């Protein structure tokens, strides 16, 4: 009950910020919520199932490009968004079926290779994708029924709705039987297998769910912010959800959101102080990893908040 109240409280707080946050922070929170969905999905694979992937940019980009290209082809925002979500999940399912034959460091390398292949594919088809430069969605492509997503409040509320659905589904997942099996696989694969679970299947489902989240985030990014570009398929976007998760707490439902929030504001505030802001961000992360290796919420859970999911 406490856990549900906490998560509903966070969502209520974000809803309140729609009315209270100054314009700059209002816009930034919309971006954070979308990328937090990406992080929430990453955490399903990494935090709960123990799959350390370095290729999630592929799933994010699948959603981003599926939605963006279909929008360019004249699809309306609703079906294009749905196609983006499914594209993320489908690519995760297919690449996972191959990559999950490996584990540990090999899995990192194989997922990274898939993502790099995806990135190169986007560049290869530059006449279609406009490569690094990217392309903009039309205003018509950013209308979700009667809702104009180029406007501040509808965009914020759409981002919040996506985040709320993603957060509550994840909360339900990790507290379900399947969620507990995922944790069992993370903790001891052999024992899970001995108990009769199909470990490969559990992992594949987790990665596919994770891909659906990444695809949803990518699709939402295209429609909410109107830009699609190859930069989002680069290695940086495979590292970011990992950082969000590590910072907020791997294996905690809210961790990636907290991580994304801190990363955004860390970059924002340090870039005002020094042009070496990325160094400062890196140093901050290093300090955190040394002194709170389980991330912020992970450390809080270890120090008393046992009920934190």
């Amino acid at each position, binding site marked *: 009950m406490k856990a549900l109240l906490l998560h509903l409280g966070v969502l209520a707080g974000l809803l309140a910020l729609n009315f209270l946050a100054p314009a*700059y922070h209002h816009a930034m929170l919309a971006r954070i919520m979308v990328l937090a969905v990406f992080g929430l999905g990453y955490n399903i694979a990494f935090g709960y199932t123990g799959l350390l992937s370095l290729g999630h940019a592929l799933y994010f980009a699948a959603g981003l490009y599926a939605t963006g290209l279909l929008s360019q082809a004249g699809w309306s925002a609703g079906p294009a968004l749905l196609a983006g979500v499914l594209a993320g999940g489908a690519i995760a399912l297919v690449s996972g079926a191959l990559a999950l034959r490996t584990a540990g460091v090999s899995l990192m390398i194989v997922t990274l290779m898939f993502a790099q292949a995806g990135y190169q594919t986007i560049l290869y088809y530059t006449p279609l994708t406009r490569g690094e430069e990217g392309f903009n969605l039309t205003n018509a492509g950013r209308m979700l029924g009667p809702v104009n997503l180029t406007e501040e409040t509808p965009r914020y509320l759409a981002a919040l709705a996506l985040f709320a659905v993603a957060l509550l589904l994840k909360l339900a997942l990790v507290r379900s039987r399947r969620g507990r099996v995922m944790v069992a696989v993370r903790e001891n694969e052999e024992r899970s297998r001995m108990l009769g679970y199909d470990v490969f299947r559990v992992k594949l489902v987790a990665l596919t769910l994770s891909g659906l989240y990444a695809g949803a985030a990518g699709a939402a990014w295209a429609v909410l912010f109107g*830009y699609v*570009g190859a930069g989002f398929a680069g290695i940086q976007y495979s590292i970011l959800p990992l950082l969000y998760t590590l910072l907020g707490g791997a294996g905690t439902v809210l961790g990636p959101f907290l991580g994304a929030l801190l990363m955004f504001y860390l970059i924002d*505030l340090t870039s005002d102080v020094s042009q070496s802001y990325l160094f400062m961000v890196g140093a901050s992360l290093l300090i955190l990893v040394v002194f709170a290796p389980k991330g912020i919420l992970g450390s809080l859970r270890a120090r008393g908040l046992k009920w934190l999911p």
Partner: protein
Amino acid sequence: MTNNLGPFTTRRRVLGGLAATGATAGLATGLGTRFAQAQSSAPLKLGFQLHRTGIGAAYGRWYERTTKAALKAVNEAGGINGRPVEVIFEDDGTDAARGPQVLDKLINQEGCELVFGPLFSNVVMATAPRAAELKIPYLVCSETHSVAAGKLNRWTMQPGITDVKSQVRAVAPFIFDTLGKKVTMIYPDYAFGYDHRDFLTQAAKEAGAEIVKLLPIPVTETSFTRYFAQIPRSTEVIYHVMVGPGVLTFVKELGEFYGSNHPKLFGFIDSLEAVNIDTPSLSFLEGTHFWEGDCRYAQPDETEFDKAYRKAVGVNDQGAAINDPKEISTYAHMFSCWETLYVIKAGMEAADYKGPQDRQKFVEAVEAMSDMPASMQHPQGAKRFNGKTHQVFGHQNISQVKDGRLVRIERTSIDAGLYPDETDYTKMSF
């Protein structure tokens, strides 16, 4: 550096705004008059989206210096509409994802009237939709053809530098008539390179020349010899537009591959901006030709405007920093910041710009611009702005490397870079 006072300032502004609304509703004009007076003498804040870090940092350093020099000149001459001007620089890391956030910050936190200055087209493409959403004039210095191609919006304009299509069309006759009609193109394997490929191919077709081989090279490539083996023997001209850290290796390996008996070379100086061309490792380039937006080396017939601009920005006759001759400028491109600031000044004065409520009038005033004569406002040379396509056209320089210096051998006319309109932004709603 920006002055980030965080949410508290903004909240105060919001409360101030509410109070002002109440006062306006309830009270008469006394306070309003005083407010208007305060606004009319307050500095005009302009935002600059700067590539201070990331892949565009070499450009960013000089774009900042150039803009500061232009700002000093503008303020010494009375500012804009009699108001002093401030430019707030904000680093976007040359990162597309950060671009819109920087625009938000400049507008919503710093209170800037508009945003200008980005070079890299990925940042421009990512930020332009945000500028349209917030209805902010966004003046880019990017060379991207996407503006003139109608891919952006009413709020995005490129009044300070010509686009790639115009540049390629202007220099193409020199390449085909003077250097040779059989051309192999070597270009980076991404959108910027593809623009060169498409525009030169089109120009070749019109001129009866032939592109005998296209060699796209991944930007991450570190060794190039295997690509050179694919250059056909019939090649008369190699057209190269390499960018990124591999460019020095590219030139060195090209020299090793061909020796002294090589096809003619024509390149875009983008490859070697901020790089000293007078070094042994680049000696292979002696005698080859380059496009330059503005001539890095002071030419014998340098105009008084370019001379004064060069001095104001702190660049010597060799195109390096006066106080550090080892630091080479991005001279071919950085004039765009200077000229864009002066277009902003002219546009704001034409629109009698007083504040955010006049942003649309400002865009319309810039759209109404046409010929811009060579002057201290346009030291690179005369320009012609096309209000329909939001794109400026100007002269291009073709230089040859002689004794390790770039010597201009031809300056194209404005007309040489013109092409039919591909869009009409003035018909687009705000």
